[in-house]
Structures are given as structure tokens and as C-alpha cells.
């Protein structure tokens, strides 16, 4: 039995860049590709180039642990993530690509009385926002995921969990390729190995980008460069409140199915799912130091293993097969920035940090709207760059302490 689906026979072509486009999207990750797709599909804008410094969707898009959920605390977050989740639910048909979206549910475990308070709070908030959410006791956790250790005799016992049944995982590469293929079919140029080295601004307006394949003029330049966002924005004189950190993940060998859902824990810091092929996919927190290199430190992996075995003693004899890191863009309030910059025609989408995969269709939708109208969509309006001046933060850090 093949454990992967058949891919289409044709994905995308590799055109040479034109001298100018209506819209240049910097960064061919999931977000850049989804944005290009919705620009073409929702707004009929097809004179678009997506410029990618490496191979398409080889950044965080290729490295994330693919958890999709919308059970965020604040109304602003629930708005955009739930919009994304609704799009996910139709995406396979929409793109005509087998993206392996599996709504297997996500459990967020609580291990302390304060965890419980925070979790219950989030469940209540989710329900008001129309996001499916349940609070489960340890026995119910065990029913949904029999391999979780809910014994009261461990260092930080599981006191319960929030559960979002509609949450789940998808295959990151296929999502990216689905967007890429559909966007390319509508005329969008996908240009690989083309690094943007500078953004040209004159009279407060964006003019063009300088790239390793020459100058490309653009009416609108839309940044979507994830971990490199602040570097690219700086070339236009725009300072972003973003710190870049490595974030690691790992997989085990392929295993027979043991883990039916997705489990995340902040107190015993690890999160785990079992991918379609059978490997356990795991991650934990960011490496604490700033870095632009896609590699992390080893002790982070060791700590993660200790956490994993606390929750899942059955994993003891599994093996780590491969570890890797992406570089994630973290804002002070752990919420993204999607919108305008002080430079006319220069837009920014960044700051998704450890959790932007799940937003891919939603942010593509809203960012495309922002590009097409020159004004944010109501769902990304709260995520302005301005909020760091006004103080209207959407703090998912302190409040929910849940990422990914």
C-alpha cells in the first residue's frame, strides 16, 4: 500500500522573471503562495511574481509540524484562525490537490491549577466565538488518546485538557504545492533561487525590488519572508518588532498507528502527532537565542524527549530519525503583523512565529485583500504594525501561553 497520495503530473513551470509586475510577493513560503493564489482567484490580479530565495516553500513551510487549530483565546485571533480553519475544510476541493487534511482533533493539556483556569477560560472564549471547544477531564483525555499517561503519580499530572475536534494536521508540502500549482495555472510567476536583496523606495513609495536575478519593478511589494522579514524590511527603512529564533522539530521512524490525535502541552513542553506515513512528529519551544541559521541546540531536543516520555511512556523505544530547525519570526505579543507599513505600496505579513502554518489559507485570503484594496480586511485589521505604537496588542503569549 502506498502511504502517500498520487501527485498531479504537472506542478508549476519556472519562468524567467519579467522586468516589472503589478505585485511582487517576497517569499515563496505557504503564506506567499496562498496570497498569490487568492490574489488571482478572489481579485483577478494575476500580474504577480512570487520571489523565493531558495526552493519553493523550503522555509518554515517545509519544516513545521503542521498543527491546525483555531482555538485561540482572543477574539481577534479566533477571527482569523477560524476563518482559516473554515477554508481548510474546503481546501482539498478548492485546490484540487490531496493535502491530507485530517481533522483528528487537538488536545491542549493542563498540568496545574492555573493551566486549568487558563484552559477553561479559552474554552469559554472559543464557544462565544463559535469555535468548537470542550474541556475534558483526565479520563476523557484518555478516551480520546489512550496512550497519554493520565496517572496522578507523575511529576506534573494531567489535570484535564481543552479539545478542539475540528482541529488536526495536513501535509505541509502538498498544501504549498497545491497553492503553487493553482496560482501558476492562473498566470502567477513562481521564481525560485531569486533572493530579494533590497527594496527600492522613492518619495515614500515603493518602486522595485533588487534581486539576485536583477531589478524587478512593482506596484506593490508584499513581504512574506517569515524569519527574514525584519532583514528585508530594513532595506526599505522599515523597522519591524520581530525577533528571529530557531525552532526545532523531529520525527521518529515509521510506526504502526498508536496516536490518533494531536497532543500539545506547555507545562510538560512538547507536542506530538503521528503523521500519515506513521512517523511521530514532535516539537517544543523555540531556542532562546536569536539566530538566522536553520539549526538549533541539542539540549532542546533532549528536554523535549524527557517531556515526551512523561506524557507518552510508550514512546520510550522509538527512535529519533531526523531533527531540523526553521527560523521563526516572533513579535512581542506573539501575534502576527499583517498590513501596511510607513512606506506606500510596501505591505508586510510576518510575526507568525511558531504558529503560522494553520493560518496559511486565512492569511493568504486576508493579505490578498489587503494588497488588492490597499486596506486591510476586517480580520487582519487588528494585526496592524501600528499596534506596537498604540499598545493595542493581541497578547497570545501571556494570556494563552499556547503556540504552534
Amino acid at each position, binding site marked *: 500500500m502506498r502511504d502517500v497520495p498520487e*501527485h498531479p503530473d504537472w506542478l508549476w513551470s519556472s519562468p524567467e522573471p519579467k522586468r516589472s509586475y503589478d505585485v511582487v510577493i517576497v517569499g515563496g513560503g505557504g503564506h506567499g503562495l496562498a496570497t498569490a493564489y487568492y490574489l488571482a482567484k478572489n481579485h483577478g490580479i494575476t500580474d504577480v511574481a512570487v520571489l523565493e530565495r531558495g526552493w519553493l516553500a523550503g522555509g518554515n513551510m517545509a519544516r513545521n509540524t503542521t498543527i491546525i487549530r483555531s482555538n485561540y483565546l482572543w477574539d481577534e485571533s479566533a477571527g482569523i484562525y477560524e476563518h482559516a480553519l473554515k477554508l481548510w475544510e474546503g481546501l482539498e476541493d478548492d485546490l484540487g490537490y490531496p493535502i491530507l487534511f485530517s481533522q483528528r482533533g487537538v488536545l491542549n493539556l493542563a498540568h496545574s491549577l492555573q493551566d486549568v483556569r487558563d484552559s477553561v477560560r479559552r474554552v469559554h472564549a472559543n464557544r462565544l466565538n463559535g469555535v468548537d471547544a470542550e474541556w475534558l477531564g483526565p479520563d476523557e483525555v484518555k478516551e480520546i488518546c489512550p496512550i497519554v499517561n493520565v496517572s496522578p503519580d507523575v511529576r506534573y499530572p494531567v489535570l484535564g485538557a481543552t479539545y478542539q475536534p475540528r482541529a488536526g494536521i495536513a501535509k505541509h508540502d502538498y498544501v504549498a504545492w497545491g497553492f503553487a500549482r493553482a496560482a501558476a495555472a492562473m498566470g502567477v510567476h513562481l521564481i525560485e533561487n531569486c533572493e530579494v536583496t533590497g527594496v527600492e523606495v522613492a518619495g515614500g513609495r515603493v518602486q522595485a525590488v533588487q534581486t539576485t536575478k536583477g531589478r524587478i519593478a512593482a506596484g506593490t511589494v508584499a513581504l512574506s519572508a517569515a524569519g527574514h522579514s525584519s532583514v528585508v524590511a530594513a532595506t526599505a527603512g522599515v523597522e519591524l518588532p520581530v525577533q528571529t529564533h530557531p525552532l526545532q522539530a523531529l520525527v521518529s521512524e515509521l510506526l504502526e498507528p498508536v496516536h490518533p490525535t494531536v497532543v500539545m502541552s506547555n507545562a510538560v513542553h512538547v507536542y506530538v502527532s503521528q503523521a500519515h506515513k506513521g512517523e511521530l512528529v514532535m516539537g517544543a519551544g523555540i531556542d532562546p537565542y536569536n539566530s538566522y541559521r536553520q539549526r538549533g541546540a541539542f539540549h532542546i531536543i533532549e528536554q523535549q524527549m*524527557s517531556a515526551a516520555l512523561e506524557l507518552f511512556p510508550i514512546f520510550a523505544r522509538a*527512535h529519533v530519525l531526523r531533527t531540523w530547525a526553521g527560523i521563526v519570526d516572533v513579535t512581542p505579543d506573539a501575534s502576527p503583523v499583517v498590513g501596511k507599513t510607513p512606506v506606500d505600496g510596501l505591505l508586510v505579513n510576518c510575526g507568525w512565529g511558531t504558529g503560522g502554518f494553520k493560518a496559511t489559507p486565512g492569511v493568504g485570503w486576508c493579505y490578498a485583500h489587503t494588497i488588492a484594496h490597499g486596506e486591510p480586511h476586517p480580520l487582519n485589521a487588528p494585526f496592524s504594525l501600528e499596534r506596537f505604537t498604540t499598545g493595542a496588542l493581541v497578547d497570545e503569549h501571556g494570556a494563552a501561553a499556547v503556540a504552534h
Partner: protein
Amino acid sequence: MTSRRMTGWQGETVRFRFDGRDYEGVRGDTLASALLANGVRTVAASPALGRPRGIYAAWTEEPNALVQVAAEPMLQATTVELRDGLDAHGLSGRGRLTDETDTARYDAVHAHCDVLVVGAGPAGLAAATVAAETGARVIIADDRPIAGGSLPDTAETVGGVAGAEWAAATLDALDGRPDIRVLRRTSVFGYYDDNYLVAVERRGEHAHSRERVWRIRARRVVLATGAHERPIAFAGNDRPGVMLAGSARAYANRHGVLPGDRAVVFTTNDSAYAAARDLAAAGVEIAAIVDTRATPSRGGDGVEILTGHVVTAVGGDDGVSSVTVSPSDGGAGREIEADLLLVSGGWSPLVHLFSQSGGDLRHDDGIGSFVPASARQAVEVAGAARGVFTLAGCLEDGAAAGARAAEAAGFRVEGTFEVPRTPDEDPAAPAEHLWLVPGADYSTHFVDLQRDVTVADVMRATGAGLRSVEHVKRYTTAGTAHDQGKLSGVLTSAVVGHALGLPLGDLGTTTFRAPYVPVGFATLAGRHRGALHDPVRTTSLHEWHVAYGAPFENVGQWKRPWYYPRAGEDMETAVLRECGAVRESVGAMDASTLGKIDVQGPDAAEFLDRIYTNMMSTLKVGAIRYGVMCRPDGMVFDDGTVIRLADDRFLVTTTTGNAAAVLDWMEEWLQTEWPGLRVYCTSVTEHWATVALAGPGSRDVLAGLAPGLAVDAASFPFMTWRDTEVAGLAARVCRISFSGELAYEINVNAWDGLALWEAVMGTGVVTPYGTETMHVLRAEKGYPIVGQDTDGTVTPADLGMDWVVSKKKPDFIGKRSFARADTSRPDRKHLVGLLPADPGRLLPEGAHLVETSTLPEPPVPTLGHVTSSYRSAVLGSTFALALVSGGRDRMGEVLYVPLGGEQVPVTVTSHILYDPEGARRDG
């Protein structure tokens, strides 16, 4: 002795099971060699296509022969050391986790050295020997059970003795030296920054620890990791009986096993001739050598050599029964009967660790593979790992690398290393670089055996428009199996190159990632499991709490007594009783877990002025002040009391859970923003035991215990502290209150904590109370708990604590943010009290508030949420604290808490519900 073992091969018999059948092998076998010795050719069916698959290689590069051994889900049969009772099963792509508890122990060791040599083959042994001579501290690690790298495989001689013997003696000699550490069965699997390498040592099922991780920091590293033989993609190249030539040679020389009776050898280079010679000597009939080159350099020792030929088909459903060979330029093929097909596409240096270290690779067109180019760390590469393929060359290269490494680490090389004599080798003829035998249809030309990926699949990927090997890998899944593409990785690149008409060097490889070999989860978790997952911190009174039957609450790493139930009491009754005791008489709580930081130095006062929102520099010695710390965004981060011990010395108290974070915070500002301030911060949390004595009777109790202390309100006013003796113990008593009652905190040396507590309890009038009662009492008074009533989005003003924010200080962390548009919005969420219409109704903490008595369709904007909720004896009602939008302007308003279809009405009140005048503070 079994049928395929070379006659005369000696060894202790080992009994094992495979797929439910009993077999015998010999000590020193791997499971793979033992299976081959027993004539077992098929290990499992391939995962996707169900084709039979056998053993293809002889060590960690094995792509095929995966087995489950007891609870161990996926191992390569080629790396499993045979042991008595071993019970293995062949796996088709997926392993199985079992419920069996892993009772084995795992350890980790930190080690430092001047030179780390990875690999104890000829190059590594030479490097280690030379480095050791200089006096450098050397670690040499090798993943095999016996030393020598390829020497035991090739049976070559060194210094006139068998290579394996020379290697064993050399390694033993190193092992005997004081500053040298020899790590056997130890795979270096990760190369991180700053020459930090990690290795796993396999110590055996019955060892003190089953496996241990070595965390090695090395001044210099010598990578002598050898090379892998390359496969060739041709039709039917996955049949059991197709095997790398060097691996077959290893089975013969290392294990005395003949992997077949009659072999065809298919090669692009000279090395397979030596394999053929050794196998023939061992008793395998060599039917023919098929050489892709027009002119081979050596004779076949009487064997027929078909030059300019390739293998175009392999016959036999369950395993090789015949091999069809054809001229490279087309033309009729010829079928040769054989049960073994040995393949050699040349050798690829094992560049994984070098690449992990950050080093760049380049394609060497001469040897047709990627080799180390420029290094980013303090690393040398020696021997086959950088493309030196002769034995003498490896010895010399290793010695030179060892000398360079030792010198770079600051040691002097004296004298010269005498490279041991090796037999003369014929100069090698140039190899051909053939990865792929052209075919009409590529559906059985396998590039990744374990993932069942064929050349046809790769071509489909390039046909779909993919240009990057990373994309092709992901599209086909080639290189993602258990072996992480050790053999298939570069082959896939080569096929992509073939399909796109690009040179291999232009395509590069996919990224090499740690771990080089799979490493157990439990191995990495080490001892940090169960109770040791995170240290448990207990106070010096802990045993008393346990004896008294208190359940504990985890607060950070601390165990805090939650409440003290008496016989027949549930939590609610116990807590109401404890609350009553404090409000009416006197109670005591173990407050030792609060974080305590000693802040000293000439600039200590200035420092605290910057860290806290309120003024600390005006505090008098002997006095205490409550303070709040904010983040730069103006949001409350921590709170607690500060006592001034001297002009230049303060004791800062933090919340229990935040103690480490606050110390980090202070250090971060001191070290990065204000290095000019002369301030020293020291955590003293564990030095003290703290007993909070609270309630109207607390003064009398204290007076009784501290006869030398003037306790009247005038002599010992609120927010001051005194050094005195309590119960005969040196103590510092602070008059502070977190309950609103008259209260004291008695601090003694942690060693004396239990004595103090027992003295307090010995008065017979004091009720012990836990964290839950503490929470209720403070909530009745409207005192917020940081982290419970705040969540990083709450300013002091939101808490109704404007007074704690200094208007006079020029600056402090958070100050600028208070002037921001959003931070001064009138409808921010304020901390308020809530009284449910039904005084018996306890609101769940975390529930939200809405304006309307019927719930509209989602999304419903929330007004805020319940942060704390309790039953109160003194209020005769339940009550809650909540953060509510514009809350202070809603006093008396009725809001609703949606709970499971019900809209529960509550009235908004002040957050200070009990004793708002503060009349009880002085007793």
C-alpha cells in the same frame, strides 16, 4: 555450524529467533550475518509494492533489512549484535511500539578533549595515535563492536599483521593511556556549534545503563568516518541477493559467511575486483565480473570479465536466480545463472558529520562524489571520508590530520609517525561514474529500496516541473526512510541530474541532518524521567505538611500544601474552616516558597527604582514596601514586597512561580541595558523558611513566642520589620498582610523552619492553612494574584492600583507605555468583584461575561472573564474577581455568565469586598 558459514570458522554458538523460527549463529555475528549464514534471504516484503527484500549492505547504511526486536520498533538487521535469546521479526516499513514499560536506565556523560577522533579505521587510529603522542587529551569514538573500520571487512594487512589485529592492538594501546578515552560501540550522531558533538554508546541490555549519550566538547575534531559504497540503479536491483560488493566481502571476511553460491559482480571501479577475489577465496563461485568500463585495470584471477557491459535484468521472483548482462551500447543480452549479484558504483565519502558541522561540500569529478570543501568549525577530515581510498593513503592522511589537530589545539608534534607498512596496491584505474543503467521503463530501477521509490518516480517528479532535489525528495519520499537516504540520497540527485541534463555537482545533495543514526527517545531523555523530569522543590516544613495530610499543589517546581483536611472534611469545608480561623482567631501558612532575591550594591536603590513602577529609593531602612514590576509594554509582570536592610541592600520578594524569571529579568537589564549600575542580585529563596501568621490573634501568639519583641502597633507598625528571636530562633519578622488581617511573616534560617513551625503550632491556638485559603482571603480583600488575576495584558491601573505607579520617577520599565493610546483607554478591562444573584452559585474560573440575558449567535464579543471564584464565609456568599471591560464604570450593573445554555446573572461590585476601610489590619 550452519550451512553458509565458511568451513573452519570458529565461534561460540548463539541461539536466536527470527519470524518465529529458531536459528543458530555465532558470537560476533550481526543479525544480518547470522540470517545470511542460515540461508535466509528475504527479511520482509517492501512496504508499498510488497516485493521481497533481503540484505543489501552490512552496516548502518542498510536500506532494506529492518527488524523489530522485542519492544524496539525498528532496527537494521545489519547493526543488531546477535545475542542469546534475541527474538526478531522482519518489518514492512513500519515498526510497532509496545505497552511494555521500559525499565532500562539511560545516562549522559559530559566530556571535554583536545582532539576528538570520530572513527577507528586506519585513518582514525593513525590520527588518534599521533595526537595522543603529543600529550593532547584525545577521545576516539567508533560505532562498531570491534576496531578497524573497513579493515576487518577487507582482510588487508597492516604492519605485516591482519588489519583487524593491528587495529585492535592500536586501539588497546590507546585505551591504556591515561589521557585517552576510547569509546567503542559509540556512534557520533550530531555535530553542533562550537565543536559540540553528541554520541550514543550502546552498552548492552544488561549493563548498568543500557545506552548513554556522550556530550563532547572538543577543541579540534578529526572526522575519519570512511565511505559508503554506491548503489547503481538498474532493473530489478531490489531483489534479495543483490548486495553491495564491499558488503558481501565484509560478510565473508568479518563473519565467515558466504552470502551466496554463485555471484555476478557488477562494477564501475576496481574495488569490486578485490571483493570478488576474497569471496572466491572464501568459496563463492564468481560467474563473471561485469565492468562498465571499456578496459579494466586488473585481471579477474581467472574469472570472465565482461567489459563495457551492464546488468539489464535480474531474474528470480524471490531472489536472484539469474542476471542478464548486455553491452552498454545496446546489443543482445546474455543471461548468467547466479544467486548473488554484487554491485559497486564506487565509493562516496561519508560527509554527514562534516556537513552537519556547517562545512561546505564540493563535487569531486574525479571520484564522482561529494567531498568536504571549506570547514566552518575546528575540524579536519581524514582518509576515505575525504576521498582517500588506499590503505596506505588513509594511514598517512590520518596521521597528518591527527598532527594538525593536536598542533591547532596547542600541542607540539615531536618526531614523525611511522606509517605502518601495507602491501603494495596496484594503482587504481579511473572509475566510471555510472548511477543509472538506461532502460526502456524505469519501474523496477529502485533508488530508495525502503521507500519503494524508483527511477520512474523520480522522473515523474522532474516531469511535473520540479527542479530541486529537495522537492524531488519530498515528492517521491526518496531518502526519508530509516536509513535517511545514506545510499539513496546522492543516487536520487544523480537521477535528477540525468533527467534534467544537469551535472550532479550543480544539483547538490539534500541537507544532512542529525542524528546520523537513529537514537532512542529514552536514550535522549536519560535520567530526566518520572520524578526527575523536573526537580521537586519542597520547603523545610514539608514533612509536617505531609504528616498532617495536606494535599499539595504544584506551583512552579514547588509543592505547596493546598489545604489541611480534618477527618471527614472535604476541600470546601476545610477551606471554609481555615478561612474562619484566620478571620476570627489566628492561622499560619508556610510562605517559604515565595521567591527572595538579595539585591545589594551602591546603586541598588536606583536599580529598584527602575525595575519597579513605584519608588523604592525613598524606603527607610527597617521599612517594607509593596511593589509592582511591569514589562516594557506596561503590563504587570510580578509583584511582592521589598524590605530595606541597609542603604545599599534590599530583599526583594517575588511570587513563587516567577522567582527565577524575575532574577533573569533583573540580570538581563543589569547586564544588557544598565551595565554601569553596581548591583548584585542573589537568589536566597532557599536560605529562609517563612511562616505567615495571620488573624486578630496573631499579635498575642507572636508576643508569646518572642518575648523580646515589642509587638504593639505603635512599636511595630505595619510595613516594618524587626530582627529578633522567635521561639528562641534568630528571626526576622515582617509586619505585612496578604489577608487584610493583622499579620506577621516570621523568617528564620531554613534549617530552623520546622522548629519555628512546631513552636507556632505548639501554642495550640493556631490553625494551619494552605494556599487555597490564602487565595480566598486575599480575594475577599481584592488583592490580585499575578498570573491568575493578570495575564500579561493587565496594567497596574487596570487592577485599580494607580497608586503603585510613580508620577515622580524620571523613568522605569513600562513608564512610556502608560501614555500609549490603548493603555489609557477608558474601556480597558478592570479588575472588579462579582456577586452572583444566587449566593450559592460558584462561578467557574475562566467563565466569560456578556451583556445580554440571552446569548446571541456567535461570534459574541466578550466583556471579560472570571479570574478567581470562591465561597466566602465572611461574605455569606460566593463571589468572584473578574477582568471586565470598563468594569469600574459598571458598578451595580447586572452582567451574565453563559454556562452550558444558561445565562447566570451577576452584579458588578468593587473588587474589595471585605473590610474596604482596612480596619482589621492593626488587629
